[in-house]
């Protein structure tokens, strides 16, 4: 009791226990909650959780509120009728708040998706985790939280300790986007080539993207097609090119096949005569002919004259190693390659790099050329269609194309961009960004955490019943069979309870094979009973509180012989 007396005279405790502390806390809470609902309405429910409900400062407000209620309950603890309502109400609140936090931290809330006829027990939690296999072969998952909650700093340090021998998380971007960016390069490899960064702007959109040859030659934007090409004289070519390689496998000459029909090209001592270009070639009586079947097999039938002799040759774009003359023609070999074609059904812009400051742009409308212009770096040009301005922000004559992870802007009413974590291997010093679904190698991956149920569920059948004559669902239900052979029906408002897990009908869909799927939400809440107990105590408390302040009720009690 002495302790209590000392405590009650402590100034900090007095403030913690006072209503002077609770009212500002409540007002803070109101503002924070309102802000959370606005974030949810404008962006996404998950953003409201990350920015408000799971944020450290919000948890701090709740913690202070809890301490405030606790202190005031201790401070005003008196077993009289007048105080009874107050005590019960605030005790109920304490239990309810504490058990809610406990469920949040200790409970499981995830999704289990089954196809009809399929069996499963893996629950995907709504939490990301870094999964790895430890030395003993056991799978370990470490939660990675995007919210800055009170426990995250502790958790992150725990991660570093547990896997510090091999991997360390060195950075976390809560909302990330990956993009490919061209970086000027002096090495010439199979994947480097010219690159430009193009910007398109009109009143509705602003779009900026890299084009690189050969990794991103073209981009299809729906009504508009962008391509980086090395042909700029005649774009009507839809037939491809013939390239002459020397003995070191370096291209020495390239001839564009602009139209069908016989044509002759010369390179060094070679005279090449193209007889015909075929879209779907097939061999009939030792001749290449156009097949009537659907599909494509682009090829050219040709003859080559070298040191006075004639050779027959057939080249296939899709089979570059095939040749009728395996020895080549004095060290030279030939290859037939398809090039980007001008689409017939949309607008198109083809760009060719002239030098490090200039590109040539050719505009097409429904397959035919409508305008041609030379553009300097950063020069804004008006397109002949769609009322856009186009400019080239970067030009590299040779560039490598690399993945870059960076902060993504949040868009109104769109799903949230995924998080990304930067992992460093402390032995090799190699660093790599991982987004959900990515893996470093066999043993380390970043994905949704999973939990295995102690039993398996087989989805026998999913039934959706509509109100007659409408597509409004009246009910969804799933017939399931557990591995103990028992059968159950799970429907909206009628969950299945087993071994502490509750399985709810959540939604439905189709898998990639077109089978009906059913989505269950799986939940385990160790504090459920406590929460319900707290709710009842709170409800009773307010009732007693309201009644005990009523003079009429007091008079009525007096007539029964109860004194206050």
């Amino acid at each position, binding site marked *: 009791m002495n302790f209590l007396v000392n405590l009650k005279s402590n100034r900090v405790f007095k403030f913690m226990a006072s209503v002077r502390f609770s009212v500002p806390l409540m007002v803070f809470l109101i503002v924070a909650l309102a802000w959370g*609902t606005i974030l949810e309405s404008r962006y996404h429910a998950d953003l409201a959780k990350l920015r408000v409900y799971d944020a450290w400062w919000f948890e701090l407000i709740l913690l202070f509120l809890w301490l405030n209620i606790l202190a005031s309950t201790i401070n005003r603890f008196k077993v009289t009728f007048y105080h009874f309502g107050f005590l019960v109400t605030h005790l109920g609140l304490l239990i309810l708040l504490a058990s809610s936090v406990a469920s949040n931290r200790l409970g499981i809330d995830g999704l289990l998706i089954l196809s009809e006829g399929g069996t499963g027990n893996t629950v995907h939690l709504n939490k990301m985790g870094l999964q790895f296999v430890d030395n003993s072969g056991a799978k370990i998952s470490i939660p990675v939280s995007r919210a800055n909650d009170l426990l995250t700093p502790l958790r992150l340090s725990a991660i570093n300790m547990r896997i510090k021998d091999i991997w360390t998380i060195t950075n976390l971007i809560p909302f990330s986007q990956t993009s490919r960016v061209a970086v000027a390069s002096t090495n010439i490899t199979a994947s480097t080539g010219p690159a430009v960064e193009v910007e398109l702007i009109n009143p509705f959109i602003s779009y900026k993207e890299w084009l690189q040859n050969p990794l991103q030659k073209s981009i299809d934007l729906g009504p508009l097609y962008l391509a980086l090409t090395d042909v700029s004289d005649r774009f009507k070519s839809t037939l491809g090119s013939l390239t002459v390689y020397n003995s070191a496998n370096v291209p020495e000459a390239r001839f564009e096949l602009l139209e069908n029909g016989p044509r002759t090209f010369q390179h060094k001592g070679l005279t090449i005569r193209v007889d015909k270009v075929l879209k779907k070639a097939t061999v009939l009586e030792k001749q290449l002919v156009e097949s009537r079947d659907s599909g494509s097999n682009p090829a050219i039938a040709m003859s080559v004259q070298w040191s006075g002799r004639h050779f027959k040759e057939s080249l296939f774009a899709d089979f570059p190693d095939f040749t009728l003359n395996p020895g080549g023609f004095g060290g030279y070999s030939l290859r037939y390659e398809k090039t980007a074609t001008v689409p017939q059904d949309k607008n198109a812009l083809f760009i060719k790099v002239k030098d490090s400051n200039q590109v040539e742009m050719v505009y097409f409308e429904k397959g035919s050329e409508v305008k041609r212009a030379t553009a300097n770096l950063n020069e804004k040009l008006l397109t002949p269609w769609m009322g856009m301005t186009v400019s080239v922000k970067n030009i590299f004559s040779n560039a490598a194309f690399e993945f870059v992870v960076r902060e993504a802007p949040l868009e109104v009413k769109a799903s949230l961009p995924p998080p990304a974590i930067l992992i460093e291997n402390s032995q090799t010093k190699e660093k790599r960004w991982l987004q959900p679904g990515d893996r470093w190698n066999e043993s380390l991956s970043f994905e949704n955490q999973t939990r295995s149920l102690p039993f398996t569920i087989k989805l026998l059948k999913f039934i959706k019943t509509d109100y007659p*004559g409408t597509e409004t*669902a009246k009910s969804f239900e799933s017939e399931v069979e557990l591995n103990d052979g028992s059968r159950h029906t799970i429907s909206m408002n009628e969950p299945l309870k087993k071994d502490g897990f509750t399985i709810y009908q959540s939604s439905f869909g189709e898998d990639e094979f077109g089978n009906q799927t059913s989505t269950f939400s799986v939940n385990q809440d160790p504090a459920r009973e406590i929460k319900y107990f707290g*709710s009842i105590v709170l409800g009773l408390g307010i009732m007693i509180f*309201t009644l005990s302040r009523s003079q009429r009720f007091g008079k009525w009690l007096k007539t029964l012989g109860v004194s206050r």
Partner: protein
Amino acid sequence: MICTLFTLFLSLGLASPNLSNDFLVQAQKIPAELLEDLPVQDGGRIKPLLALSQESLLFLTGKKSLKGLHPIQAYLGLTIFSQNSELPVVNVRNPEIRKKLGLKELTHFSVVELNMMPLRQMLEPILRKNNMNASNLIPEERDWIEVYHQVSLASAIYSGQHFFNALTLNPDQSMAGGHFLPEHPSNPAAKFLRALKMGADFSNEINELKSSLQSQNIPSEFKTQISKTKLEVFYLKSHFLGWAAFVYFILGLILVFRANKTSLKVCWLILIPLALHSAALTIRVVITSFAPVTNMYGTMVWVSLGVVLFSLIPLLLYKQKWITGILWIGAALILGITDSFPLVLSPSMDPLVAVLRSNFWLSTHVLTITISYAAFAIAMLVGNTYLIGSQFGLLTLSKIRDLAHLTYRMIQLGVFLLTVGIILGGVWADYSWGRFWGWDPKETWALIADLGYLALLHARFLGWIRERGLLIGATASFLLVIMAWYGVNFVLASGLHSYGFSSGGATAMAAFVLLQLGLIFLGLLKERAPRT
């Protein structure tokens, strides 16, 4: 070209008086009373033709009927009138859309006229967006979709397809059965419409229509609903709620202005409108088989009933007749508004989405939450009585004390009911979604409102505010209730409680909020002025 110009003139009104007259003459001949309780299928339930006609016309034209016609006369008249597509009946409600379509001065347009506008081109990208994710549409885009649905509905009514579909009481067999397929040679509905059109004697056709309606293979849940169509016709024609609102208002006026001369016996007259009000709610429950609080309309009717019930507390406990009178006027206003704007506050009794199909939880959780709004509404009404009364110096100190005491008790009652309601909602959510609390906007705003009132009670306990502060605070806190009740569904429109989402009424609601804030501001100014 000349032809199009000609139709343009027709629809823009040059020939329109004649056209309207021809339409009226033909429609007035339709024997509407005989057809009122004809059971038809629409929106997933069986309803009388009267309800279908009213609802269709309301969506199409913005009113429950046309030019004083009986709703069925207007509905069937539109089907049989040969120049129906030239009648200006489609109500384009969004002025921004009218502007973009080049329609400025009028609000109603004919289908011919709308089809000549660049409507299709404007709609195409919006419809694509709607198919991908309807929840990403901005309000104006929703209104475009509404115009699209209005034009589709008009076309379906004009072709008779809408009527035929509604008569097919087993929609799942509509393809196979074909009683009412338009191309079916003995389609009794088509025969009936032909007879109507010719102005011939159609009594045989009506009988044939009714008997073939019954001979369909009707789903069992529809059979019980068919027996309720007469009751629904009675409900639609009796206007119980409008009458109840009117009587509340009159009795309220009597109590306010003649408080001292009115005996308590006169006050018992309140039981009459209360009975009408309760009867209307009961009939809705009988027709729909669920608690009548599944949309804004239902909750407002329920809250106004709660206000009247709780108003008996000051009347019986404190014998404060004039306060009770004000509360009755308030209830009459809430109920009157609810019953007067069917476009915004839809009185539709169409069935529930799957998650709400639990009568136990729907009744306990929603009824408890919304009845707490009634207690808070009383606190707000009393607070405003103080704000307005004190501006004109009408209130004595003892009257202010009475008002403050009533407000305090009502807030306590409301906090109790709201807290219990929130917890019940948590238990229901735990039971059917698997989580007790998920920071869903609807539950979060209910909590915000609860916290607002709790802050007020604690501040009163602390002495930070006194009687006047509590009265003003009760009006301010009710703005939080409005946000939880109306704002989440109509303004934020996000979250899991999506079944109540709607739009409209934002201007009126903003006007109310501004007026309330203005009153509070004036009240605070008066507080700060030195008292003599």
